[in-house]
């Protein structure tokens, strides 16, 4: 009895629409398509502009650090 009660005490609010039954095959098919959609973009080449941008930001920071070091001297 007490185990069943503990099992039912779901902090997420358990037995509501989150528990709606869905055919596991349909769920699996949607899951595969989601991954296919997402991974297709993840695996695409990253545009150079992002790497250039980050390199510029890093160079700026290094220069700023160098400048403040110079000021201290």
């Amino acid at each position: 009895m007490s185990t069943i009660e503990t099992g039912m005490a779901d902090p997420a609010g358990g037995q509501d629409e989150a528990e709606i039954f869905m055919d596991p095959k349909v769920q699996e098919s949607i899951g595969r398509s989601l991954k296919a959609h997402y991974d297709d973009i993840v695996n695409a080449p990253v545009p150079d502009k992002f790497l250039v941008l980050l390199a510029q930001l890093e160079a700026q920071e290094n220069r700023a650090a160098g400048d403040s070091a110079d000021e201290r001297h």
Partner: protein
Amino acid sequence: MSATEFKDGLIKEIPNLRAFAASLSGSMQLADDLVQDTLLKAWGNSEKFEPGTSLRAWLFTILRNTYYSLYRKRGREVQDSEGTYAERLAVRGNQESHLDLADFRKALAKLPEEQREVLIMVGATGLSYEETAEICGVAIGTIKSRVNRARTKLAELLSIGGLDDLGPDRQSAAALQRAGSEIVNI
């Protein structure tokens, strides 16, 4: 964390940021603008990132907030003028997928934003329900119900899990019923 370590961390997350941004905005061009803004904000606020926590979750939070505050309206305009990325993105390779990728993307784009974003986060990015709840600022139960509504809606849009899929079972059930009534009739 040194600037170089932080930069390397950001570089590793760029592919995921692009995929999430494209899923949110429905446009690859907007996605790349959004990723650029996210990287700039992340760099400017690097001291707020706590080493040891998930950099992906932190970056997704920035990207998502940027999208909702600045890009949402633009997204609709771009989609209207160019069509969604679903129609323009070349589909690379993956024919193993059960559903056609372009059809799937069109259906995904029709989901309400709040359902689409959680379905992507939970179903494709490797983020946990807890992290997703934190990123969206809602309870885990809310995330679960949004994911379920999203799946149901997608199945409906893609016409899977509907009457068509029940075909063979219904046919065999009908056959059994016929066989049963014949036996009764004898």
